[in-house]
Each structure stands twice: as C-alpha cells, then as structure tokens.
C-alpha cells in the first residue's frame, strides 16, 4: 500500500543516497537502521507534512483546555440570543458564523463550535491513543510469546486470536458500551465513557497486532544474528529482550501509527451512534450525531466536526504510510 508520490518521488531514490551520504560523511561505519529510516522519511514531503499536522494536533489536544481559557472560549456556554426560538436554528447565514464565533454556533444552544471542536480534540485523541496502547501492548506480548516459543503455546495463542477475530467488533462495542453507559467499576460520567471506549476499541483489536508481531518474531528468530547470539550461549529471555524486541520496534511503531486513525474513526462512529461520549461533553462523533439531523437546514454544522475528523485521520494515515515506507522500502503488506 504505497502512495504514488512516495514511490515515484523522492522515496524511490532514497536508499542509495542515504548510503552514499554515509560514505561522504566522516565515518564509514554503518548507520543504524533507524538513522537510515529517518533520512528516508525526511525526504518524503507528504509524510513530513502529515507528521507536522499530527504534532500540531497533539499539541492542540493536549493544550485544549488552556487554549480555550486563553481564547476565552467555553464549549458549554449557551448563547440564546444567537438562536431563533421558532426554528431553534442559529440566526443569520452559514450556521451563525461571525467574528465572535468563526465556525458558527450549534442549533438549540448557540454554543461556540470552535470551542466544541477544540474540546472534542482531546477526547478523540485520548481514546485513540489509549485504545492503541492497549491493543499494541496485548498484541505485542502475545505475538512475541507465540512466535518465540512456537509449538503448543503458539497454537493456543493463534486459536485465541482466531476467536477474537470472529467477533463482530462493532456490534460488540455498541452492545458493551450501551450496557455500561450508566455506571460500572465505580465510575460514572466522562471517566467511565472514556475508559469503556478505550477498552472496547482496544481490547478486541489486539489480534491484528498480535499476528503481525508473531510473524515478524517467527522470521527474526531464524535470522543469523539470533543464531549467532545463541551460539555465543545466550538464553531465551536475553535473546527475547536484547535481540528480538529492538528489531520489532519498527513494525510496531508503523502499525501503531496506522491503528490510531482507525481508532479515531471507531470512536467517532460509536459516539455518532449515541453509545460513546455522551453530551453535553463535546466530541466529534457526538457533534456529527447532532449535526446530521440538520443536514438540510444547517449543513455548515456537519462540516465542522466532519472535517476535523477527516484532517486528523488523514494526517495520521500520511504519517503512518511514510513511516512504513521509510522503515521498509519494499513497501506493501
């Protein structure tokens, strides 16, 4: 899965150049794979753009609350004067856009959409990151164990992954989040919704990661450097941690980066379906849920959260693609 810009553009020529650069440099000593990858990545303009947007987004999300305070925005404060009580729509054109409210306000309440999109950003990212960390953690541990010990252990773990993959993920996610909406594990409200979302999205997704790591481990353990280590008397855990894991970092990073955007979409879908983040807490999916009801009379509203999701997901996808190409120039799956 490679985009044209990367293979036909700079990326296709990077490898020899990277090596050449090494030669030109003061030391002939081989550059680490990571360095080469970084060099390659820096040549991929689209991916770099993706990376910059991602960094910006993370910064915005992390600083969302202070930023709101700084700009004097409040995602929950209503402005009744901006709403026509008969239609409950924002007064004026373009969904109530104005100097005070550059992205307009929402129907019924007149809450500032810029503030709500800002507020929604950290929700989206925290769920996506949380879920990704969860599935990557489980997937890596299971995958490495299965690939390293092989035999019966591998058989059991592989079957377990089959079982997980046979679950209709979205249905499960909806059913579980709907059942636990009220309260569970002593949590209620936003903390509950966040943890439930992270759990349902992350927990059922690990086998994908698991399969990739298992396959990589299986092939790595047959490689010469592992044989060499073994020949020098290294034992299982040492090989596992010193020889295998460092070489797994690449694929794990790439896959995690690609998992984040799909998790963002998943969270948005659940909130859109009404079982994710609950209003009045702003979330992108929740905003879309509200906005599609007005797609004819106030279409601008729908565009705001829709584009926010689009830009974020696109940026992560670009970054992920670029990272993969950089780490594995042969590309493809």
């Amino acid at each position: 899965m490679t985009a044209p810009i990367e293979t036909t553009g700079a990326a296709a020529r990077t490898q020899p150049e990277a090596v050449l650069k090494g030669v030109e440099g003061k030391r002939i000593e081989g550059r680490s794979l990571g360095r080469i990858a970084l060099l390659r990545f820096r040549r991929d303009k689209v991916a770099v753009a993706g990376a910059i947007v991602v960094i910006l987004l993370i910064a915005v999300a992390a600083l969302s609350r202070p930023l709101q305070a700084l700009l004097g925005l409040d995602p929950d404060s209503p402005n009744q004067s901006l709403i026509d009580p008969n239609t409950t729509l924002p007064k004026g054109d373009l969904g109530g856009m104005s100097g005070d409210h550059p992205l307009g306000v929402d129907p019924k309440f007149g809450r500032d959409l810029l503030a709500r999109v800002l507020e929604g950003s950290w929700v989206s990212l925290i769920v996506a990151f949380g879920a990704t960390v969860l599935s990557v953690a489980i997937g890596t541990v299971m995958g490495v164990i299965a690939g390293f010990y092989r035999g019966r252990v591998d058989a059991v773990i592989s079957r377990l992954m089959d079982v997980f993959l046979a679950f209709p993920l979205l249905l499960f996610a909806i059913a579980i989040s709907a059942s636990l909406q009220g309260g569970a594990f002593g949590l209620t409200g936003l903390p509950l919704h966040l943890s439930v979302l992270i759990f349902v999205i992350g927990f059922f997704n690990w086998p994908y990661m698991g399969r990739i790591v298992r396959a990589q481990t299986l092939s790595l353990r047959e490689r010469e450097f592992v044989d060499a280590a073994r020949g020098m008397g290294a034992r299982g855990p040492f090989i596992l941690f010193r020889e295998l894991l460092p070489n797994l970092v690449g694929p794990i990073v790439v896959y995690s980066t690609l998992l984040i955007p799909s998790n963002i979409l998943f969270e948005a879908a659940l909130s859109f379906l009404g079982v994710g983040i609950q209003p009045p807490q702003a979330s992108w999916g929740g905003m879309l849920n509200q906005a599609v009801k007005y797609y004819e009379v106030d279409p601008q509203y729908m565009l705001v959260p829709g584009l926010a999701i689009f830009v974020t997901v696109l940026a992560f996808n670009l970054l992920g693609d670029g990272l993969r190409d950089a780490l594995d120039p042969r590309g493809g799956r």
Partner: protein
Amino acid sequence: MRRSVPVAAIAAITSAGLLAGCTGGAGSTASGKANAATEGIVNASDAKGGTVTYAMSDAPESFDPGNTYYAFVYNFSRLYARSLTTFKPGPGPKGNEIVPDLAESKGKSSDGGKTWTYKLRKGVKYDDGTDVTSQDVKYAVERSNFARDTLSLGPNYFQQFLKDNDGGGYKGPYKDKSKAGLKSIETPDDHTIVFHLKKALAEFDQLVSAPQTAPVPQAKDKGADYTRSVVSSGSYKFQDYQEGKQLTLVRNPHWSAKTDPLRKQLPDKIVLKLKVAQSTIDKDLLAGNTTVDLAGKGVDAQTQAQLLTDAKEKGNTDNALGQRLNYLSIDTKVKPFDKLACRQAVEYAVDKKAVQTSLGGPIRGDIASTVLPTDIPGYEKFDLYPQKYSGDNLDLTEAKKKWTECGAGNVSTTILARSDRQEEVDAATSVISSLKKLGITAKIQQYPSSKYFSDYAGVPTFNKKNNVGLIMMQWGADFPTGYGYLQQILNGKAISSSGNVNLSETDDPEINKLLDSAVADPDKAGREKAYAEIDKKAMSQALMVPLTYFKVLNYRSPKATNMVATSAYSGQYDYLNIGVKK
C-alpha cells in the same frame, strides 16, 4: 404514563433527518388554516370509500388491545376493538369527553363508588358473526392485567383497583383455569358486567376506556400471538398482517351502525405501513400518498423549520397540546434540596426560555408553571415563581435571594436524563448552565429509558447514594383526569423502592388526603377543584420545576376528512373516523 414514543425508538442512535422539503402541496389547493384541527373537526364528511393510509417509522410490539401501552395504539385499536367507554372525537381538551362505546351507557356505581355495573349494547358482533358477551370483556381484563409474564406491555390499573381473590391471589386465565376466574368481576348475564373495587373510584368510567376492556373471545386467544389475529368487535377487521411490514384492515361486515353511534366506517380499507423511514412518511404526507403518521409524535426539528417558513404548508399543520408536562423533578430527600428555600431558588433560577428552545421552541410546548397541563380538567392558571427577563437574560435577583436563604453556597449535584431522548438531554444541558449561575454545579447522568425507572431514577436509594438532586421527567396521564395524572407522581403512598415515578419522593399527608377524598367524590366539579388545590400545594413546596406544556406539530393531510387533534391521545388526530376525499 402512557408512552407516546416507542420504547425501541432509535432516537439515541440517530437516524438522519427528514423530508425532501418544500415541494409544495403537489398542486393541491389546500385552503387549510394552521391549527384548524385543534379548534374543530376539519373536512367533516360522511363520504364513504377509498383507502386511508397510515404509516409509521417503527412498529409497535403488539396490536393486541390488551397488550399495549402506546397512546397511538390505544387510539388506533378502537377501529377493531370496542372498549366499554371511549373518548368522543373532539378538538383539544374537548376530546377528553367520555362516552359509552360497547356499553349502553356510562357505568352505574353503587356501594359508594366501589361497585360499577355496565350493560353491554345488544347485537354487537365479532367479525366472525358471533355475539359479544360480557364474559369476553371479563376475560379481556383478566388476561391483560393478571398474566403479565405473557402480556407484559400494558399497564395494570385493574390489577391495582380490583379486589383480588381471597387467598393467594388470582394468577390470570392462563394459569388459573377455574370457571370463576377473577371473582371481583361478575357477569350475571351475557350483557351485564359488574366490577368490585378495593376502594371508591369515581372516575372508573375513565379507566374502562382503555382498550383492555375490549372483548376477547377466550377460544380465539393465543396469548402474545393474539396480535396476529385480533378478533374484531369494531368497524374494521384484520384482513392481513405482515409483522413489521403492513397491517391491512377492511370493513367488518358484522358491524352495524345501529349498535354504534360513534363510528362511521367511511373508508373501504385501512392500510398501515410499518417501518417506513420518517423521511418517506413526511414526503408521502406532503404528496398526499399517506394520510396519517400513526405515531403522531410530530415532525422533527428540520421539517419543523421548513414547514414554518412555508406560508402555504404552515396552514396544513396542527400545533396540538399533548396533555403532558416536561418537568424537572427535585428530590426532596437529597441535600440541599431537602430545604424548601433551596428548591424555590431552583424554581426561580431555571431559565425556562432557554429550556424551551432546547426542547424545540414554542412549537414544542409553551412555558409551564403548574403541575397539571392546561388540557386536563381541573387545570387552573397560576405562577408562584414568576420569572423576569431583560432581553434574553433571566433576572436572578429572586433566585439568589432564596439561595442565600437556603444557605447551601456552592454545591454539586447530579441530574438524570434519558439517553435515548435527545430533547431531554438537551433540556438538562440547558438546566445545568442555568444553575451554574447560582453556584450549583450539576453533572448530567444519562440512562436508557428501558432502565430509567427500574434501575435509576425510579430507585430512591440510588438517587440518595449518587447525590441525584434533579431528575428530568415527562409525564402524561393514562386517563385524562387530575387523578389519573397526579396520583402516581405526587402520592406519598405510591413511592416504591424501584420503578417509582413519584420522583420528588414527597409524602405530604395533605396531598395524600386530598387525592383520596377527591377520587371518591362523585361530583366532577368538586374533584376538579381538589386537583387544582393539589397542584398549588405541590408548587408551593417546589417539588418540581414545570418546564413546558408538551405540544406536537403534526402535518394534516388536505386529503383527509374528519381530522381533529385530541388531547385524549397526546395531540394525535382522532383515528376513529378519518376518511379520504375522493
């Protein structure tokens, strides 16, 4: 509270909006006037023939008159099921008038209102030509109220009011096959039925207007499956029922106008289309292909905006009262709302204008100040906590004064709302920002309506444990009298440990006594006076913040005849005699 909204409505899980808009009345010259059907019967006509088409975006779980709790099925079922009494088609509150239907006349009470006797009309037949008997009415009440593990969907007022059998209690006709059945209903002959109540109930005529008293022949009963083959006692009978798709009714050949002064049997055929997308329903309504939206919930926000800006189509809308109240219940057992002044501060502080907008604007309800909705007999206008606005801003002087008196300072509390009712969540959101100005930090907690009363809002211990001071609520009467409306939400004896709807948990001896004496009072005027008094008592104690008197905006097809929006069925059109113009 009779539900006007299907339980399984996918409100939370939204389906996208509605309707392809202002395409005009498809060339028809509708000379309609807005709200005409709330003032009189529009297009009154005796013209027979044609097909009346109903449509609905969902499907009710059952059409069995003894196994339903939806106002629209109550309304619709009268086409094929005759209860002892029913409502006379009339506009708004005039639709509340009770008239005999299967019975010759209203009930005769004796024993101080504890025994009620009805004489059935002679010559009423089922669609198979057999005679309707009083035993069938008795059986219908038994199956609908005493076999709730099988027919679970309806209310159980008869179970609550009728005397139970001695020893052990009556287990319903499916388990108790004894000939006598429930002994508190007697059928001395085929046309007489006598009910013996636990305590006096002057409004029993209202209670028997429920379709649960429509006769069901025991031999034809199939339990929960009876919905597929309901035996008709009304003017139409089941011709074809495809579950979740379509129900077709045709004239009942054994129905006779001689035994029925109410029904006109106008159209040849009545078709009810189920699970039609709401957008299609509205489009078909505007194009004249569908006559009535069965659920009668009104159009959604988007269509509302479009209809109201189209002068011509606006004339074909009815903004009808639905005999229900949106309110914010204040739990008197949860701090700091155990103090009167604290509750009164909330009464002043809730910005009802903003709440009204979040509930859909004035079209979806006028701002309320009483417990009784305006279209329930006994309603008296008063406002103990008048609100002053300067521009869009609510004046909080009075609220702050009361809040200081209350002395709670900055507090936090929890407000409950039903997650699958968007309007309710929106209203709660609005309440939260109102109360913030007083120093009350309210946190919203949402639960699905299927569990709202059984697990959360209706469980007093839950509310206490979770600091739930405020609860969003909508309430409508099962029968349109003050008692039917007030009894469950204000009666101290009605508080239960689960499934409770007396959400303020008020147990006021005066209110309890007034309710008890009112319902036994045979004089209607006396009863209504008592209801107004209860209303004032409840408001003076600030047990709830009335938000809006619920209204719906329905589209009235210009092709339909005998259209009248009645309060008795949540502002829906009365379905008894709707016909079509040729």
